């Protein structure tokens, strides 16, 4: 890539900081240049976030339908999967799978509920009443 071809498509990161790129000058010698971002990358991020948004909405619908506990909603919202949630909460994966069932969730001990609320960085009330949390 030549130095004057370094893309300058302002993206999310570009608003905060420029990226260093290695590019060649007129003599073909490598030097560094700053980039504001590249549309191709921004689009890849956008597509990924749209997909996350879909998953969050699908999770919300499931919770409202009483097919899943609010943990599913917050898990998707925090871009976690059961593996990641398991390591943050310290619960086993099979426990989390149980907690995703509304009936089990409703009977969870305050200690366990607190753990989830802490990991998702919300209050216990917000955790239970997903609606109050917006989105």
């Amino acid at each position: 890539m030549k130095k004057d071809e370094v893309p300058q498509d302002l993206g999310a990161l570009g608003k905060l900081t420029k990226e260093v790129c290695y590019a060649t000058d007129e003599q073909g010698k490598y030097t560094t240049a700053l980039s504001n971002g590249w549309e191709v990358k921004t689009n890849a991020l956008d597509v990924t976030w749209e997909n996350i948004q879909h998953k969050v909405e699908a999770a919300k619908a499931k919770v409202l339908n009483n097919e899943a506990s609010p943990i599913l909603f917050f898990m998707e919202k925090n871009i976690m999967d059961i593996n990641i949630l398991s390591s943050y909460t310290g619960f086993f994966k099979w426990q989390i799978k149980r907690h995703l069932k509304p009936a089990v969730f409703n009977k969870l001990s305050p200690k366990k509920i607190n753990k989830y609320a802490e990991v998702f960085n919300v209050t216990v009330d917000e955790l239970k009443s997903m609606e109050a949390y917006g989105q």
Partner: protein
Amino acid sequence: MASNFHHAQSAHCESGVTRNLLQNIGVKQITEPLVFGMGAGLFFIYIPLLKISGGPALAFRSVPGIIFKRTCHSLGIKIIRKKFSSKEKAKEELDKKLSEGMAIGCQVGVYYLPYFPKEYRFHFNAHNIVVFGKEDGKYLISDPIMEYPTTMTDYELERVRFAKGALAPRGQIYYTLATEPVTEERIKRAIIKGIKLNVFHMLKIPGAFAGVKGIAFLGKRIKNWRDKLGTEKAGLYLAQVVRMQEEIGTGGGGFRYMYGAFLQEAYNYFQHDELMKLSEEFTKAGDLWRTAAVQASGIYKGRLGSQQDYNIMGDYLAEISVIEKLAFTKLAAVNKQLK
């Protein structure tokens, strides 16, 4: 506080952190491309059965920490690296080293990095920063992705040092011990060693998944994605490939350019003309990675979508594989002549 610590921005976090830590102990002649080359930073692996966040599992880099380790080792610089099971002990040790005026490398997760834009926050745990002091109760942070140093509170730093999930940093810190001046001879040997190892990574790892063979293999698989996954999921997969490839200075094009820069700097040490020519071949490979990314984006943005478009994408990777195989084969021969 390590008052003489100089923050410099870099294209890739680990090579940047390594360079900045080396500068801090007085090894001034080592640039980011030299670190990247000595540390054999170019890598590729695609594991077809494994999924990362529901998409294809591929990596353009080796395990975190290895570039730092290799570079320092080759230069004869002693390093210390520690992981912690206790958050308190992790903080204690860091504070102690900072109070001695040292600058300390930390592996962190990016999901909770307070100064990162929301769009970039994924559960990615192999990011590297330097902590170089504490002022007014806040840690002074040099993140090589950022133009300027920043700060984090105790809580913020603890959260990113103890991020969970794949490649969890477990509070890992690493730093260099003071060293004798690094001689030109030592640098030359480190360059030769780095090239040799990178040739091995890209050409010699057995199996079809790693190195230049892995790139061609991914290309072949991509041609099947449209039929196998449907257009929506195939688009998401391609977006993931591009994110892994071009995200904040890691991966495809960016890494090839950095390797090209490394070969030019290697030329300054050896005056072997072939190094300059090979640098151009890596530039060519980098350009083609970017062309492939543009093609992929056409697909995930919905501008392209026929089987022919997927075939073109796959063929780009096949072509890259051929170019890089040739470049590394030539480089291996040149490396044997370097003295």
